[in-house]
């Protein structure tokens, strides 16, 4: 496969939260259309990487760069990154009381459409648009008129993140441990949906602790993050190796090197 254009290029990224350095110099290059998986033990900095790319204000960038389409990503506000096509499926989606999923999604979509100079969708148009999107991923609209994530089960919250991904159609989708807390059926549904949403113009960065999600979504590249550094990268087979051997051998390697 001919290599596509670079979409995201992270160099020497060092990030601290509450004064503790979590990422200690991370490099990562994602090309247009590629699916990358980042694996690693708890506390290795996987979620920090996801959050900092999305612009969470609690994370302090100490050094390094992140370029998205050649532009300085770290210089953009979270909403500007979102409008430029960066989407984060949250590990812990928050609840927004009294606001229906449908209203929330329409507001978000319209914010993106305004950015692209497209006309905003009124509730009727949005409903039609939504029906199409739901149909494409084979989901029903049962979540749409409930308040955002309020009273949702853990699995429903994660599914809701994927639904938002389907509607907002980002160019770079970051999935932060979307598989955690899902039973096997829900995991399959989510994975199948992600596969349907893969396309040559969209890249994915999938953060996961376990290999099981990667049984259903085959990544182009697998990275291992340990103690704030990328310690190994490889093809999909690396995930299987990790499943068999655990992380310790790599962590030891990281310490030694």
């Amino acid at each position, binding site marked *: 496969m001919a290599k596509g254009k670079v979409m995201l290029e992270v160099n020497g990224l060092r990030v601290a939260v509450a004064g503790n350095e979590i990422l200690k110099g991370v490099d990562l290059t994602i090309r247009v259309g590629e699916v990358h998986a980042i694996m690693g033990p708890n506390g290795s900095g996987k979620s920090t990487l996801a959050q900092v790319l999305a612009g969470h*204000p*609690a994370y302090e960038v100490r050094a390094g760069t992140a370029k998205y389409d050649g532009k300085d990503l770290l210089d953009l506000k979270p909403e500007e990154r979102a409008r430029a096509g960066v989407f984060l499926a949250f590990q812990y989606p928050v609840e*927004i*009381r009294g*606001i229906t999923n449908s209203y929330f999604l329409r507001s978000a979509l319209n*914010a993106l459409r305004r950015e692209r100079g497209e006309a905003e969708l009124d509730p009727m148009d949005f409903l039609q648009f939504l029906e199409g999107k739901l149909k494409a991923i084979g989901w029903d609209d049962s979540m749409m008129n409930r308040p955002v994530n309020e009273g949702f089960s853990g699995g429903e919250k994660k599914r809701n993140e994927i639904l938002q991904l389907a509607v907002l159609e980002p160019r770079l989708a970051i999935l932060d441990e979307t598989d955690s807390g899902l039973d096997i059926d829900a995991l399959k549904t989510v994975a199948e949906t992600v596969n349907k949403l893969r396309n040559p113009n969209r890249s994915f960065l999938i953060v996961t602790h376990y290999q099981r999600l990667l049984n259903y979504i085959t990544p182009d590249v697998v990275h291992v993050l340990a103690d704030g550094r990328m310690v190994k990268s490889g093809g999909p087979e690396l995930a299987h190796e990790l499943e068999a051997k655990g992380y310790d051998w790599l962590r030891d390697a990281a310490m030694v090197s």
Partner: protein
Amino acid sequence: MTGIEAHVQQPYKYGFVTDIESEVVPAGLSEDVIRLISAKKDEPEWMLEWRLKAYRNWLKMSEPHWPNVKYGPIDYQAISYYAAPKQKPKLDSLDQVDPKLIQTFEKLGIAIEEQKRLTGVAVDAVFDSVSVATTFQAELAKFGVIFKPISQAIREHPELVQKYLSTVVPINDNFFAALNSAVFTDGSFVYVPKGVRCPLELSTYFRINASSTGQFERTLIIADEGSYVSYLEGCSAPMRDEHQLHAAVVELVALDRATIKYSTIQNWYPGDEEGRGGIYNFVTKRGKCAGVNSKISWTQVETGSAITWKYPGCILQGDNSIGEFYSVAVTSHKQQADTGTKMIHLGKNTRSTIVSKGISAGRGQNTYRGLVKIMKGAEGARNYSQCDSMLIGDKCGAHTFPYIDVRNSTAIMEHEASTSKIGEDQIFYLRQRGLSSEDAVSMIVNGFCKEVFKELPMEFAVEATRLLGISLEGSVG
């Protein structure tokens, strides 16, 4: 940028002053001033006597200091109790209203000129101490609905006014109600006859303009048997460094099977971020469900005033009567609010619902204070109360004082309360989906207030949503 912090707020948009020649009575309060006000209003003797009785009561009373608010002493002799724009004594049509007044209300979004009126809403516009225009009076009269300034009603419908005035809020009810009874200048009077469903939303817009004055309006609404009326009040004032006193009294009477829906969008000048200036809003509002199966519903959106002291309540006298209170109170900067309701259950199978949403930002202090009292004869009474507080930032406060007094063992009471904080994570979540931080806060707050906003008449729900956005603009960093 880390953390959520209060910073500069969007300036108050209604803070302009209308340059108009006014007649202002010199500051101070005495029996002579009351006689003067009564004479200016061309009042009958009984009204003057009533005022003087209230004044003599007031002299023996002291200002209440139990609310959870702090402010310096008020000098009641430094306030002017009457201010009115100079105009012709009798207004037969809008042509005679000073165009500056029409422009003022237009600037506030209140159209009183015929061709620009909001359809379906009749407006009484009160400027300082007088009503300057009341729209749709003639149209309403066709249905027998009386909607006019109370000063006019005292002259034209003395039998109705005398029958109901101070039957819900006695003149010595409290310090501010007594003061209001002594010096009230204008306000609205509504009477809806038997079986009539008032065809328009009625609304009064109160504007304080003159400095060093207080506004003391009085509203009396009577819904006769089987009638229905929806009434809305709005208000605003110029930005001034001094505090101005607003002490209103509102009385509602619902007879058998009548329904009164009373909504308030309160946007008095709140003062600046240092707490300079702003209105002291000390208001007594009470409704009496006098008849069987009657219903009174209060909805309030309180975003303005330096200090709010207000407990719109219901006396549920008629059997099966219903009282409701839906409230959103916002305090930002150094605003303080002590607000809630009183539901007094007297009749059998009476029901009350209380939904209170308090939002505190900046250094605002927000107190919910509510009383639910079930009297001995109130067999089968029910109450449901829900008090939710939301905090924005870490320098504000939320307080809840629910009082429950049950004297009949058949009562069913439910009380729910919650306190939440708009978190960085909530805002980040919405920003990550493309919304600006202002839109994110507005969405979270509107979701929080939804149960109250849905009670507002449609035209005003939009206004309330917008106002809430403005009040909190910039309060999240």
